[in-house]
């Protein structure tokens, strides 16, 4: 990983020096090993604080939405899964492709510090990946855990190391982690009774603090003013004043990005209360695949998504209403 970091850094400096781009959107070192911050690097800032390690899970494509009116050219570092979001943003004209230089960077799966901490590890001072294991140094001593146990949720269902869009690649040969079935939990929920499902979601959503991190981090959520922030929409709110508002917010949030959601997993990654929000989005993905044929948002730019399309033999909603069993 360190070799790759150096390679990216050198290339970034080259791009800036040659004037090919005005800025590089990448990750900046944080206070600890596990908290790199998305940042824009320019000639002025230099790349001294640049980093690319096992904790660069953040999807940087959304940072380009705010740059759409800028006449500057930005290079952006995208991992394979992030390129789906980029394609989707290009499809929706939320970014200006002409002013973007996409550097696809290799990925071997990123780690979730929350999961490390859930293993009872605190006081983390260093983390290093050693093959299948992760060594964590803390002020209270060393511990070793299996890498597969502390992978980010999105990396557990990795879609491989192919970049769907890029202008150049660095370190693309890295092997991404082996994926498990991404619909496993959705299937499990579907097999429950309605009462069990209701209890499950009530338990999860009741922890929601309405910080809106899921929405703001989502590369598909690009409305200038969200309906939940718009005082004239009639449903704006700053807190979940009732259980209904929890349900409303999350159903609508997921619905609004359905068929545009690339299943990048940012919503669950950023949730401070660790609510498995991706399970809502993934249900839509699964339904769309089942009802309207396999579809992967962001597979390529300028696809027409199933919700702005139709077929005359589509299944009827009564199929859901009249479904047998739970």
């Amino acid at each position: 990983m360190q070799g790759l970091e150096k390679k990216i850094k050198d290339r970034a400096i080259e791009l800036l020096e040659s004037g090919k781009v005005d800025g590089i959107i990448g990750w900046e070192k944080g206070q600890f090993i596990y908290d790199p911050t998305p940042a824009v690097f320019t000639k002025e800032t230099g790349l001294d604080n640049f980093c690319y390690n096992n904790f660069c899970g953040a999807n940087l494509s959304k940072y380009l939405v705010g740059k759409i009116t800028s006449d500057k050219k930005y290079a952006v570092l995208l991992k394979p899964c992030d390129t789906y979001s980029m394609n989707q943003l290009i499809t929706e004209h939320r970014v200006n492709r002409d002013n973007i230089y996409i550097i696809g960077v290799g990925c071997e799966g990123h780690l979730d510090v929350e999961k490390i901490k859930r293993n009872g590890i605190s006081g983390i001072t260093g983390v290093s990946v050693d093959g299948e294991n992760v060594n964590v140094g803390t002020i209270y001593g060393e511990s070793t855990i299996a890498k597969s146990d502390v992978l980010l949720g999105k990396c557990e269902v990795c879609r491989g190391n192919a970049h769907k869009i890029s202008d150049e690649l660095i370190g693309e040969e890295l092997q991404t982690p082996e994926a498990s079935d991404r619909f496993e939990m959705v299937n499990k929920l579907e097999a429950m009774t309605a009462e069990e499902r209701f209890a499950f979601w009530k338990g999860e959503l009741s922890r929601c603090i309405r910080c809106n991190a899921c929405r703001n981090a989502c590369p598909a959520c690009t409305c200038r003013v969200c309906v939940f922030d718009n005082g004239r929409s009639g449903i704006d709110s700053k807190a979940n004043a009732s259980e209904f508002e929890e349900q409303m917010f999350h159903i609508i949030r997921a619905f609004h990005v359905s068929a545009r959601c690339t299943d990048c997993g940012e919503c669950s990654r950023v949730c401070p209360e660790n609510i498995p929000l991706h399970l809502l989005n993934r249900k839509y993905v699964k339904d769309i695949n089942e009802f309207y044929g396999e579809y992967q948002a962001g597979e390529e730019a300028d696809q027409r998504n199933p919700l702005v399309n139709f077929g005359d033999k589509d299944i009827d909603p009564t199929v859901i209403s009249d479904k047998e069993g739970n």
Partner: protein
Amino acid sequence: MQEVKEFKPNIVAFCCNWCSYAGADLAGSSRLSYPADVKIIRVPCSGRVNPMFILKAFEKGADGVIICGCHPGDCHYNTGNFYARRRMTLLYSMLDYMGIEKGRTRVEWVSAAEGAKFSNVMNKFCGDIKELGECVKLGDIRCKD
């Protein structure tokens, strides 16, 4: 013995202006009855129905929500109900996934000529909702009596 109060469901029906709304009219002028519990909201097309409308109806105390549009292929705007069909399929599936009784939401295609169908659909839906009882899983507590 305690008196058992008959449950009066609150039902919201979003009806397309060009077909089901006229269908409701025809039902009325043909003297076909449908339950008074159904509150009709006229929309220009079933495609106008935003998923938020449905949730909002539940928030304010609806026990069931039904959307009535033109038969697929007969949309006044050519394609509105095709889009509605996909959206509602996904939304209803999501509500079911979250544990809300799936019988509380429905889509039916009723043309302007189908007064009898409109009446049947509403009688049936109302009966189903009566069986399901009050909606307690979806709705704002601050809107309850």
